[in-house]
């Protein structure tokens, strides 16, 4: 064949396949590259297949997972969130970033609290010295679910790990307060107040102590008000009346020695100041 003809055919075929590539790229396909990772039953098998390079494989799957889960064209992609991150964990249990990021994806993209917790629990199981995992779990429980019982449990786990920051204890104590156990909350906050040298922390603890005392006092006063109402069918004029009618031993005062504000029409009791503005 002549050289010119050959060259011409070469250029034509090149142009054709490049054009076809552009066309096929435009056709939407549901297949995401590398998605066959989903079908691996367990990370254990993959660990065998990596022949000693499981750490690298974990990195690569993690990078792939980040891309995969941020790809909006696959709406049902979160089915495999827990599975993929368990594979990464199996390959490199001490790789900490994936646990956090996996939980993050679960919470904010998949809106799946249970999966997030599963991932964080797995992280803690494999790395018992990492207080960040139970802390995050507690954080999500508190902020998103407002489940203080769950939050308290996780804060406690985190607190007990050596090296955990003091703020966790404060979150723990706050959770106890939110659950209504004012006595334990008071004890904890007192401990925090006494054990800290930091002025800022002391201030925070003192505010919490104020709030807790207020809650306890208000609870007590409200109880007394109820009894008064049952007896006299009306609310007292002032709180001192409760003492006179012997429903209270004395009128409690707030932590700063101030009186509580009593509304005789509604029977509501409030603190004179907002705890945080003391």
């Amino acid at each position, binding site marked *: 064949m002549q050289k010119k003809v050959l060259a011409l055919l070469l250029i034509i075929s090149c142009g054709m396949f490049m054009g076809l590539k552009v066309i096929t790229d435009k056709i939407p396909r549901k297949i995401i590259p590398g998605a066959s990772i989903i079908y691996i039953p367990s990370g254990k098998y993959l660990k065998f297949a990596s022949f000693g390079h499981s750490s690298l494989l974990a990195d690569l799957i993690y990078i792939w997972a980040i891309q995969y889960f941020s790809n909006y064209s696959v709406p049902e992609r979160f089915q495999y969130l827990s599975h993929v991150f368990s594979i990464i964990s199996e390959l490199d249990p001490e790789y900490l*970033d994936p646990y956090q*990021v996996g939980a993050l994806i679960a919470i904010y993209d998949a809106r799946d609290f249970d999966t997030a917790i599963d991932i964080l629990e797995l992280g803690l199981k494999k790395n018992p010295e990492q207080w960040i995992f139970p802390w995050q779990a507690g954080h999500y429980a508190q902020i998103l679910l407002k489940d203080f019982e769950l939050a308290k449990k996780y804060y406690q786990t985190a607190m007990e790990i050596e090296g955990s920051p003091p703020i966790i204890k404060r979150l723990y104590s706050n959770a106890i307060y939110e659950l209504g156990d004012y006595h334990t909350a008071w004890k904890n906050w007192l401990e925090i107040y006494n054990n800290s040298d930091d002025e800022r922390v002391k201030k925070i603890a003192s505010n919490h102590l104020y709030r807790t005392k207020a809650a306890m006092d208000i609870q007590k006063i409200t109880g007394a008000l109820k009894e008064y109402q049952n007896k006299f069918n009306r609310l007292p004029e002032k709180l001192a009346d409760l003492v006179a009618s012997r429903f209270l031993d004395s009128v409690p005062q707030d932590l700063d020695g101030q009186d509580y504000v009593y509304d005789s029409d509604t029977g509501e009791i409030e603190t004179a100041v907002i705890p945080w503005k003391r």
Partner: protein
Amino acid sequence: MKIRAVALNTFKEAIRDRILYLLLFFAAVSFILSRLLSLLTVGDKTKIIIDAGLSSLSIFGVLMAILMGTGLVYKEIDKKTVYTLLSKPISRNQFILGKFLGLIITLFIMLLVMTAIFFIIILLHSGTISWKLFVSLGFVFLELCLITSVALLFSCFSTPILSSIFSLSFYLIGHLSWGLETLIKKMSPGITKILTQVAYTLLPDLENFNFKTEVVHNLPIQPEMFLFSFFYGITYTFFILMLAMLVFRKRDFI
């Protein structure tokens, strides 16, 4: 010394092998690739660079060891250069040792070059180089020495293609033997269990030289691990070399 002469000659021959430079190129490419991948990860960006680097060094090093080692003795027999060499007052054992030494010197230099490129990439990424990384690389080299001796052994009696397959199998088995340990734990006691345990101890355990995870996560390593792994590598390599000498000893060069 005679062994040194053969080693030097082997080194001169091996260093001209173009396959080395091809693999070196791929190693460099994979380092650069890892640098790019680090842009896609969330969190610790240095981890993938170190992981990819160590894995590449290990894989490409093993490929170099196998591709060169399997041709080493075979080529001499095939091309009949061995005729005049062995008719000189040099023993067959000295010949094998010389070949082995020449090859590991070549591998050492290749590893050094790859490590230099690797370190440059890490430092550019403003990572730090811990002493554990050096130790890990030392053990990569030890693993390469062992694989080389295996490739040399097969080269004494088999064609390059078969030798490569056998050597590669050795490498793969060496990284899977930990699975056998798990299996043994689940077995019920008896003669099968004992036999499997013996097989397990005999088979190579290349995971003893794998410190990648400890380097990357900066985990503590017991000093005994280093010591015993090192001696394990040395003695196993010695064993394979003795085997090679045994095979080569009474070989007829038709």
